[in-house]
């Protein structure tokens, strides 16, 4: 890769960042070294350079440069969109940012957390912190998917993806994590639902412009979850073998049934997760209710053994 192009990109960024006014294309091509060849070649180089910088998240603003010639455009990188302001963060905030970046311990996320840390240290120098006693995080979901969805929630951009075999278009309202899984809360045809990220099939596409929708005023993730858990308070009934399934006995009350079994009631929200929990305990746990789930469990076992 030629150093010439890198040098030109740096000089272009610096010029657009240092300028107090919008610079015309002609000024840029005339004053910034590296734009060589015919006028068409120079123009093509400039278009590609702009695309490259924008592709890496640098915001280049465009404005009509000359009121008399409406097709003449001017370019500028606003300092506050490009770099942090002087003294933007207090010492304590810099420490919190350092701790937040240091939490992650996972190859996919580590590069981003290291890059974030470099920027924090470019504001503060080395930060003393008590990270030795803070747990680290390992993220196991698809990191890029989480980033796309987070960004769409932040920018209020419509999302399109496949979920349970159906193509969906949704307005993303929020994100939450529960038992290590991330969920998107979004409105699909005016109904607010939650979508488990690991069950999204393939890529997620952001559609259209930012600020594409308004969230209902009274919406917040906490209330949504409260309403959801109130409306779905399902309880399963199970038999648990005496002296077995210690982790369940530790969490839920058991009743004596006979010399071999005890009875236990366990609340659940997700049928698949209940089935997984029952099967995990093998012949020490028997699902009694709901009967439909017991039938599904038997059908799954038969399909496995006959398949």
């Amino acid at each position, binding site marked *: 890769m030629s150093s010439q192009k890198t040098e030109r990109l740096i000089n272009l960024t*610096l010029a657009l960042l240092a300028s107090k006014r919008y610079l015309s294309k002609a000024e840029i091509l005339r004053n910034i070294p590296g734009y060589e060849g015919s006028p068409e070649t120079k123009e093509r180089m400039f278009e590609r350079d702009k695309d490259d910088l924008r592709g890496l998240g640098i915001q280049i603003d465009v404005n009509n440069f000359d009121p008399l010639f409406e097709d003449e455009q001017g370019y500028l990188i606003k300092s506050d969109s490009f770099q942090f302001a002087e003294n933007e963060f207090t010492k304590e905030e810099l420490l919190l940012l350092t701790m937040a970046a240091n939490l992650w311990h996972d190859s996919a996320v580590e590069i981003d957390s290291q890059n974030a840390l470099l920027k924090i240290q470019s504001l503060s120098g080395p930060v003393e912190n008590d990270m030795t006693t803070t747990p*680290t995080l390992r993220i196991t979901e698809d990191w890029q998917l989480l980033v796309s969805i987070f960004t769409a929630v932040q920018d209020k951009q419509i999302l399109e993806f496949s979920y349970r075999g159906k193509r969906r278009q949704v307005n993303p309202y929020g994100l939450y994590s529960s038992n290590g899984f991330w969920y998107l809360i979004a409105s699909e045809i005016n109904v607010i639902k939650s979508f488990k990220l690991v069950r999204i099939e393939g890529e997620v596409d952001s559609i259209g412009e930012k600020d594409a929708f308004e969230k209902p005023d009274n919406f917040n993730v906490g209330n949504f979850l409260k309403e959801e858990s109130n409306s779905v308070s399902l309880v399963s009934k199970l038999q648990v073998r005496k002296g077995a399934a210690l982790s369940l006995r530790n969490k839920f009350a058991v009743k004596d049934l006979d010399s071999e079994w005890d009875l236990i009631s366990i609340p659940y929200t997700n049928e698949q997760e209940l089935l997984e929990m029952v099967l995990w305990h093998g012949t020490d746990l028997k699902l009694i209710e709901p009967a439909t789930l017991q039938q599904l469990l038997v059908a799954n076992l038969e399909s496995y053994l006959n398949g």
Partner: protein
Amino acid sequence: MAESAAVRALRTMDLIPYVLENPSCSIKTLAKRFSTTEKQIERDLELIFMCGLPGYTPYELIDIVLEDGVVSVIDPQVLNRPRRFSKTELVVIVLGLKILSEIKLERSDLREKIDKLIAKVSHIKNDEILINDSQLISSEFVETINKAIGNRQILRIGYISVTKDQSTERDVVPLTLYYSNGSLYMNAFDVEKKAERVFRVDAITKCETGTFLEFEVNQSHLPEIIIELEVQDWLRFFVERNMSIIRSVKHSNQGLLVEVAVSNIDWLEKSILSHIPGIKIKAPQDFAVRVRENARNILALYGYSAN
């Protein structure tokens, strides 16, 4: 893959505010921090030495000095502050801050400060993201474990093994704490076994601090067994969540052909049973027979037998 000119341009520009805030930084340190080679850092610095603002006289160029392998910035021009966080870095920071506010609950003033900081760095609203993992919020032994990590102290723990379904008492020296798949784990030195073991914190029933212990960790790992599995597409997350044990993944008509290496075969057996009928064992045959036998026994519990 060779990096693009734009990626190199950004890294080169990022060097300047970093060196400015961390003076007398060596080439070696910069290479480590920016995850590249010393040669590349030297090339980047040589390049940025040629860059600056239109006019490009010595007064408008970025001025750096490289002496005895140590870099100093004399004039950064407009690069006196770091770039703002990228999209992905922002997710690391905001989610990290959210999690910090949950685990640092002993300081109630911190939550408010963290919320303010999130609003400062992103457009995400406080009520749009929720970390709802009860373990993050209420792990009663975290404080004791944290202290023991710092002091290299023995802890006497009561522990329920969810795989073996046994309750034991052990003396351990905790080494690290980490969150993964929604559970908090403690990596600790088991005093009796003289080796490192991983414990789920929610399965610890008792935790008492003991004395300081000097020890050497036995680096020999438990023997691993290679198992070939066929995982149906809907269980893709099983693969994503267990990347640490996966040796290879290939696509097949039925889903994914996965090779895993495990030391804890009981855990794998329970995981396969939990996800019936989604995971089939291709090899070794004796393990496949063992899991089928167990599935048959579970089915018999419900009064059915396989054909």
